[in-house]
């Protein structure tokens, strides 16, 4: 692992693992992180699983937050960032609960953040070098990823190759931002734009991802298309916002209190 400039007390680092019915893979993921990323606490967000995900995660040595209802990936990740913000973590890395992210890359993500102090987020991308070396996914998903990559690159003005990758590490500033406000469906895509809107910089480094070991993807092709339309709409309307996200002291981004 790349050491950061020594500082007292040692930097608190958290691996956030969102999981929904991942009892088959979750123990392996936690083990992977604890072994290959020493210095990271593991937090599993059990997003309303109906299997033994939470128990298995606790036995494997993770901190577990259980959602009584399924909020979806965006809500689960925001719980993780809330925990990180409240407990003084300086670094948070997001690792999927299905085992497709290889924890050996966490040291590389950390090293990249340490070498580039202007960055507040670094994402592990499958497509930085050649088009998807070794990573298998459906054609429709690839088309979706490419459309998002094109749109996001055009808006942010920097090259983004894998906007849907959930394998990303954030600094304290980004943790606090995401704890306040985090998008819902395909949150990774909109999160990049949130960073951009707040003048926080992000970058990508190449990683290899595994095909999922067990369980099923939460997103079917039709839902996937529906989400795409919705996220593109969100991105489009976002362009008309002068200041897209809340600052400290602003009203919370909920629809509840308002009438016409």
């Amino acid at each position: 692992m790349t050491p950061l400039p020594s500082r007292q007390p040692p930097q608190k680092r958290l691996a956030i693992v969102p999981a929904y019915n991942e009892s088959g893979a979750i123990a392996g993921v936690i083990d992977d992180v604890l072994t290959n990323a020493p210095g990271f606490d593991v937090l599993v967000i059990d997003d309303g699983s109906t299997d033994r995900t939470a128990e298995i995660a606790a036995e494997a040595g993770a901190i577990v937050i259980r959602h009584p209802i399924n909020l979806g990936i965006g809500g689960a990740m925001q719980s993780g960032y809330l925990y990180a913000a409240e407990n003084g973590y300086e670094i948070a890395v997001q690792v999927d609960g299905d085992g497709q992210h290889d924890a050996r890359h966490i040291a590389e993500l950390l090293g990249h953040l340490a070498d580039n102090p202007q960055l507040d987020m670094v994402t592990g991308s499958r497509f930085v070098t050649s088009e998807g070396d070794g990573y298998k996914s459906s054609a429709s998903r690839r088309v979706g990823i490419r459309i998002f990559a094109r749109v996001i690159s055009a808006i942010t003005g920097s090259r983004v190759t894998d906007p849907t990758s959930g394998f990303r590490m954030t600094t304290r500033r980004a943790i606090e931002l995401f704890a306040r406000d985090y998008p819902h469906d395909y949150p990774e895509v909109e999160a990049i734009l949130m960073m951009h809107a707040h003048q926080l910089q992000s970058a990508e480094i190449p990683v290899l991802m595994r095909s999922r070991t067990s369980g099923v993807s939460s997103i079917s092709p039709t839902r996937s298309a529906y989400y795409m339309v919705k996220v593109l709409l969100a991105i489009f309307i976002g362009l008309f916002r002068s200041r897209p996200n809340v600052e400290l002291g602003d009203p919370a981004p909920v629809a509840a209190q308002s009438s016409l």
Partner: protein
Amino acid sequence: MGLRIQLLSIVVTGGLFVIVFELVRRRKLMERYALLWLFASSVLLVLAVWRGLLNDLARTVGIYYAPSALFAVAFGFILVLLLHFSLVISRLADQNKVLAQRLGLLQQRLDDQERRLARMTQRDAADADAPDRELARHR
């Protein structure tokens, strides 16, 4: 379709579109609930602007007064929107129930822990007050 009713239709449907868009922009309305509204208002706007399409539509389904066809389409959208909201409310009610139950169970566990803690501190205090009696009782 007369010019006056056409202008009125354009103003109303266009106004609806702008209001929905503005609500989403101000983050008062979530995109997932805005999608159907935006779709409905843009279809109605197109029908209001494009007179020929509305006339053709009216003739095909046998409506003599073209603006009525616009109302019919709007009515269809309203039915779909209402059904959509019923589904959303059902899900919210269900989730709300689960949350309340979970909170109730947690509250019970907390109360239980607090009572146990109170009993323990009470006993400790009693022990400290009368060590001899406690000692005698243990023998």
